[in-house]
């Protein structure tokens, strides 16, 4: 370890935040956390609140695991990670129920399902266990935001085309419907989330050739 103190926002640390937004996005590049991307992206609002909850859970559990990294016995590390994540999720859920009751009602089961989000455990295993708390914190924020951004993009298209609304507000005017336009019912169903994610992956790889696998 170098005696020199690294600045808080060194280029290496900034990269931890920005990389997951683009070149190592958890959903489009690592293809993790697809399941929740299907479930909550019918409307933007729940997708947004879930993204925030994931950011909190992920940042805190990354820091906790990183602090414990020298004491966790490798043989039971997965269990330790699960316990930390589950405890965090329950805490977030309880706090939401106590102080943001309306939001918690909207999210209902999805908060609990954060536990099963593989991105969180993937980052704990791959990053937090071998890095100091501050980079781990940034990595958590970065990856969770990368996840959240895709969630919101997918939700935007599904809500717009499926219900004609954005954030619950009608954006496609009545007159368009009078001309015979119909909301696309298929957009509301889970398969379209996969197809939208697929389209995003396609666009991203068309722009960024180094993500394209060679085989």
């Amino acid at each position: 370890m170098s005696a020199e103190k690294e600045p808080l926002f060194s280029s290496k640390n900034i990269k931890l935040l920005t990389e997951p937004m683009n070149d190592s996005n958890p959903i489009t590049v690592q293809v993790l956390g697809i399941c929740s991307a299907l479930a909550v992206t019918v409307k933007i609002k729940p997708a947004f609140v879930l993204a925030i909850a994931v950011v909190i859970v992920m940042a805190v559990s990354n820091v906790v695991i990183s602090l414990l990294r020298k004491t966790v016995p490798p043989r039971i590390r997965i269990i330790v990670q699960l316990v930390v994540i589950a405890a965090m999720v329950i805490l977030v859920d309880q706090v939401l129920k106590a102080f943001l009751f309306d939001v918690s009602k909207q999210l209902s089961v999805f908060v609990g399902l954060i536990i099963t989000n593989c991105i969180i455990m993937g980052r704990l295993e791959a990053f937090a266990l071998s890095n100091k708390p501050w980079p781990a914190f940034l990595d958590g924020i970065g990856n969770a935001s990368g996840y959240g951004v895709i969630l919101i993009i997918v939700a935007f298209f599904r809500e717009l085309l499926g219900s004609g609304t954005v954030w619950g507000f009608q954006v496609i005017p009545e007159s368009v419907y009078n001309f015979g336009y119909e909301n696309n019912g298929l957009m509301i169903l889970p398969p379209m989330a996969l197809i939208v994610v697929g389209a995003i992956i396609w666009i991203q790889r068309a722009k960024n050739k180094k993500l394209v696998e060679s085989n």
Partner: protein
Amino acid sequence: MRSYSNTYIFIFSSIMVIAVAAILSVAAMTLQPFQKKNVEINKKQNILTSINIESTATNAEELYEKYIKEGYAVNSKGELKEGVDAFSIDMKKELAKPLEERSLPIFVSSLDESTQYIIPVYGKGLWGPIWGYVSLESDLSTIYGANFAHKGETPGLGAEIDTKSFQIKFFGKQIFNENGKFVSVSVLKGGTADPNSKYEVDGISGGTITGNGVDAMLKDCLSSYESYFKNIKK
């Protein structure tokens, strides 16, 4: 990779489990009063919504005091039950009992110089429980307002039952037909209800099973009040 003895692993996991359990129970204990309060306020808000009074978490209690005149419970024969607090009745538990033993809560409100009877309803959706309040006008047949909520119906589909645009379809419908027979209001598959019918409403396209749940919930819950309604009308 360092190796750890079994004793270390054992002690580590014990401490971890105890620490996590302690944190969670402290959190649950300290937050419980807030959560209870929220649930209570939420219930009052739901009751108020069913008589078309919009309330926020801050003014719900005040409005509740203002509009809801009384709450009492009856049995399935329509007789008043003494010593039962209508507000704290858990519909889920009541519906699990045989019909004769149920305590059926009724809230009475007064708005627009007339009386509304508010009936709690409870049933099953696609993924979990659904519940709500239906208010009837003083003729005890015309629906004055309705409010539905759910635990975890599919967002954008079944979950739409908690929106105004779905609930508004029930307003003005009748639960008794011209001959005074109980018919309830049927929730049909999206787009198939006859707009002129007083006894049917459109369900949500893609949320048919939740719609069926609402349909069954209304039939089950409202029908158990039938004799009480007849008693009042006499």
